[in-house]
């Protein structure tokens, strides 16, 4: 089968406006949050990972971020390729400010125009797993020969709807994200724009081996153990590798009391020998539909450059899993998982050339 390689990447998140900036600020501290105050019945302050770019006009800010991140990934070389935009919130932040009408197609056209894009454009929204599902769609289009190049662009930017909705569902922490932590009390949301440029035309350090997405309707707002296990099994089959070939797992582990435990159990029941685990949520927050792409960009960069994460919290011993406190050596294959809303469980496997 035609190998699909990751030829370029770009990222803007709370840690910085480029991969270099993010890598530079990562080891310094795990806390890059601002406070957001929500009104009304559940009033209060919630930590939030905002991208450090001030610009009062929502659309102008989005345009600048999208153009920067896409350029960093080398998108200008493939403007006739397939663009897959992954988002759960579109430009709802601009709609809230009265600057834009809610319109999926107008949003897609706007982003395409910012990038001077001439190829096909698809907008994938499967909530938290959007960018991983966009990656799976891109891989299928490239494998089938429909296209040779694709850009997966995760966009999740400042809006009140996502924050308010998560607060109303009592899913947010007021103290901070503590993945697999013994004091975990919810997730912390964040902004991110992230790009992965995929190609079948050139070699690259990392290739996309395969992946899987399993929707389980049993829990509309969370994960199930059986679906975590099925997701792993399907991802192994799609990538033609076994569990013992996985050297590292980037977990969802956002710090949710229930979901973290479900994920840990699903992994324990899948892996006889648990590979090292890493979570990026404490460092950059949970960037919803952009999180899958954003975390893959950051993790591949970390592995190449020998930069690793600091965890400031104690892991919950009852979960029977641990987070890798130093960088595992010789990572040839890692799994990147996002579990989320809509009972969606997605994972991709990346392979180092």
């Amino acid at each position, binding site marked *: 089968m035609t190998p699909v390689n990751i030829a370029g990447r770009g990222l803007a998140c709370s840690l910085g406006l480029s991969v270099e900036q993010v890598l530079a600020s990562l080891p310094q501290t795990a806390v890059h949050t601002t406070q957001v105050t929500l009104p*009304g019945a559940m009033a209060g302050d919630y930590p939030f990972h905002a991208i450090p770019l001030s610009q009062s006009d929502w659309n102008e800010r989005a345009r600048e971020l999208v153009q920067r991140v896409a350029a960093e990934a080398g998108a200008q070389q493939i403007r006739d390729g397939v663009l897959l935009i992954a988002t759960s919130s579109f430009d709802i932040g601009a709609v809230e400010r009265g600057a834009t009408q809610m319109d999926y197609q107008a949003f897609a056209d706007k982003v395409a125009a910012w990038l001077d894009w001439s190829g096909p454009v698809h907008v994938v929204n499967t909530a938290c797993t959007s960018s991983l599902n966009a990656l799976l769609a891109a891989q299928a289009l490239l494998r089938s020969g429909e296209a040779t190049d694709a850009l997966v662009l995760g966009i999740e930017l400042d809006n009140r709807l996502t924050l308010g909705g998560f607060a109303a569902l009592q899913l947010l922490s007021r103290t901070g994200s503590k993945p697999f932590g013994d004091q975990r009390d919810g997730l912390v949301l964040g902004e991110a724009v992230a790009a992965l440029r995929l190609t079948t035309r050139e070699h690259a350090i990392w290739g996309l081996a395969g992946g899987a997405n399993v929707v389980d309707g049993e829990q509309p*707002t969370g994960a199930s153990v059986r679906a975590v296990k099925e997701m792993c099994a399907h991802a192994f089959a799609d990538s033609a590798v076994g569990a013992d070939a996985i050297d590292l797992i980037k977990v969802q582990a956002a710090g949710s009391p229930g979901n973290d435990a479900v994920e840990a159990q699903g992994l324990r029941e899948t892996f006889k020998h648990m590979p090292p685990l890493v979570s990026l949520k404490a460092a950059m927050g949970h960037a919803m539909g952009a999180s899958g792409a954003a975390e893959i960009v950051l993790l591949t960069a970390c592995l190449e450059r020998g930069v690793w994460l600091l965890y400031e919290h104690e892991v919950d011993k009852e979960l029977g899993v641990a987070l890798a406190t130093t960088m595992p050596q010789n990572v040839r294959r890692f799994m990147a998982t996002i579990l989320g809303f809509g009972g969606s469980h997605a994972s991709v496997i990346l392979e180092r050339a």
Partner: protein
Amino acid sequence: MAASTQEKELAQLIVTSLNLEVSADEIEPDAALYGEGLGLDSIDILELSLAISKTYGVQLKSDDADNNKIFSSLRSLNEHIQQHRPK
């Protein structure tokens, strides 16, 4: 024991906010809200919690250890609200 006026008001809030098929009068003050009885689940409880916060100014947390007791019946929920209402 028949429902009090306060309980009837709360029953109406439950029916309206959760779009239930039953009428407010049919909710027995001592019958279970969860599972058997009204058949509410955890997402209904979240919806109801926010509706109660907005109406009565009483915050109900989904991770409160006493939730099973608080939400056990219309009567217990009403008692909790009346005890914690801002004066």
